[in-house]
């Protein structure tokens, strides 16, 4: 018997019973579509997290006061803040880095008739490069402004939209806390990141925030960017030993600061999304399995229903293996068809969801290949039992079947 004829016979049998064939395939369609969509969406979520972290700044280290111990309320920060001299020491002692000290607070900002509470970051010009957040227009702080703590500020895009109502902000004075402050620059738009609007912010010289807003001469964080890829580990070690020398003689005992790497954060988040992807994929795989059992059910019913046909085929000279092949090819054809339709629906669904949620659209050939091969494998596995049952029929019993 020629292979093409076997295929032709199976296709005819499928076409002869279109509704049943469709219902049989439906399980596989849903199974493959959900596996493909779930895994793709998981990868897309991972990509989106990675992209957001890259936008915070690459090779970025956060040096924070406190202990890196996680508690119910998140990180505990009960230690004393750093001094500007600490940032200065890091800058001088460690090679190949950019250092931006930061004192973060929030202040009531009044612009014309609008007022709002806005996060204010006191920092230096290194901030732009370290946090990968540059000026769109205007100018950076001048050295004089930095050393004197002048009342100048650089504002984020959200302030222009919400408080300046689209008016040109450069050169105008706004009130930050109790200080009148001149706008000298505007930051480029960054959008949302981890649920925060990164454009709703004000940058001022660190000394201005210290003296005019907070009234303390310390900094709440030091941002460090390693200039060489892959050197963050070494830089981290150097910063830790330096700060230990500078702080521990005062405080004694354990470290009262910690250094965190954006890559650490990225890895933590990535492993979380990966776990979720695996979980969702596994649930979807169960539905694929159920789809396979559906194929087996229908094929078994089909064998019973077509017993007489099998008897005729055996009587006119079909061998057991001819009948086996015919039914096996039939179930493989059904599951392959289902797999293809499922792929299309799965990829389409992924595209729709990522488009709606503004996530990156990721397509993985591996995932598609695995999903599709699974559907074919299911056709083989769940088609074999009914096909064998058909092939093992006794011709005379099959012919007498009513």
């Amino acid at each position, binding site marked *: *018997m020629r292979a093409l004829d076997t295929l032709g016979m199976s296709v005819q049998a499928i076409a*002869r019973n279109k509704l049943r064939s469709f219902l049989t395939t439906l399980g596989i369609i849903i199974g493959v579509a959900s596996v493909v969509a779930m895994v793709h969406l998981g990868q897309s979520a991972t990509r989106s997290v990675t992209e957001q972290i890259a936008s915070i700044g690459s090779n970025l280290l956060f040096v924070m006061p406190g202990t890196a111990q996680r508690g119910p309320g998140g990180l505990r920060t009960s230690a004393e803040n750093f001094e500007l001299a600490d940032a200065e020491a890091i800058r001088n002692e460690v090679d190949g880095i950019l250092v931006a000290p930061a004192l973060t607070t929030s202040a009531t900002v009044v612009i014309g008739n609008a007022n709002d509470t806005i996060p204010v970051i006191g920092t230096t010009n290194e901030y732009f490069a370290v946090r990968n957040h540059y000026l769109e227009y205007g100018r950076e702080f001048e050295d004089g402004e930095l050393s004197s703590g002048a009342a100048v500020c650089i504002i984020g895009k959200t302030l222009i939209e919400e408080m300046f109502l689209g008016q040109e902000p450069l050169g105008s004075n706004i009130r930050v806390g109790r200080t009148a402050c001149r706008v000298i620059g505007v930051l480029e738009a960054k959008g949302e990141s981890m649920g925060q609007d990164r454009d709703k912010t004000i940058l001022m010289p660190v000394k201005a925030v210290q003296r005019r807003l907070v009234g303390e001469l310390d900094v709440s964080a030091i941002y460090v960017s390693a200039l060489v890829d892959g050197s963050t580990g070494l830089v981290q070690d150097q910063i830790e030993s330096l700060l230990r020398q500078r702080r521990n003689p005062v405080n004694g005992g354990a470290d009262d600061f910690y250094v965190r790497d954006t890559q650490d954060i990225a890895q933590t988040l990535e492993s979380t999304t990966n776990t979720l992807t695996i979980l969702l994929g596994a649930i979807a795989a169960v539905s694929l399995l159920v789809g396979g059992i559906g194929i087996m059910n229908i094929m078994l019913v089909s064998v019973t229903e077509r017993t007489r046909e099998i008897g*005729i*085929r055996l*009587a*006119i000279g079909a061998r057991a293996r001819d009948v086996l092949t015919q039914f096996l090819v039939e179930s493989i054809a059904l599951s392959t068809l289902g797999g293809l339709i499922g792929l299309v629906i799965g990829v389409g669904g992924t595209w729709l969801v990522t488009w709606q949620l503004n996530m990156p659209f990721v397509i993985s050939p591996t995932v598609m290949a695995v999903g599709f091969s699974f559907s074919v494998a299911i056709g083989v596995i769940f088609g074999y039992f009914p096909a064998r049952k058909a092939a093992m029929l006794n011709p*005379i019993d099959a012919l007498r079947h009513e």
Partner: protein
Amino acid sequence: MTEPGNVGGSATPQFAPSVVEMRDIYKIYGSGATEVRALDGVSLNIRAGEFVAIMGPSGSGKSTCMNILGCLDVPTSGEYWFRGVEVGGLDRDELALLRRNFMGFVFQSFNLLPRTSALSNVELPLIYEGVRPARRHELAMKALKTVGLVDRAHATSAQLSGGQQQRVAIARALVTEPPVLLADEPTGNLDTAMAGEIMKELVSIREQRGITILMVTHEPDIARYADRVLFFTDGKLIRDGAPAEVIP
């Protein structure tokens, strides 16, 4: 093992070779008190070119005998030689090849594939033989021509009358040009006029091709078309001879 086509083990001095030879065939269902002997020690010999009718009341074993002759069923004990081959020693696939190459079947209920054209039905045995589509089509049309149904080649079973369906079934049985045709009550589902036509068809095919025909029937009128009648009762072959001698 003897090659098919050779003269069988029979010592009967005949000019035509033996096609079928049964020696002491038993077919027993169940055991002990519920034992049923469908065939109870049957021996027979059929030579090439014979037209044999197998008769008997229902339950006499004639259908069981036919199924064993057609290699669709195997005997409980005894020897069955088909064209010099002892069928008892063959496995399922070898039996299938024997049916494919040397036998054509015609059934009482036609047994055409539903929702399939006459042409496709006739082509089916050739598909299993691995014949290419163009050649298959040619042979199937030739077979349909033999039974006078060329113009109905693309009609499905439901669009054909009973007589036409049986003629398609005959074309399907003959398309591989087998030396033996087995017919199980071929006229059982047809009216008298149609039955007569089918029988004339079989007689003319036999004259043209010298084919051996084995036919089960319970109707004496149909059996008279044969030139030899085997009469079964209670699983035993009790009469064997020309129709005039056997049919009362």
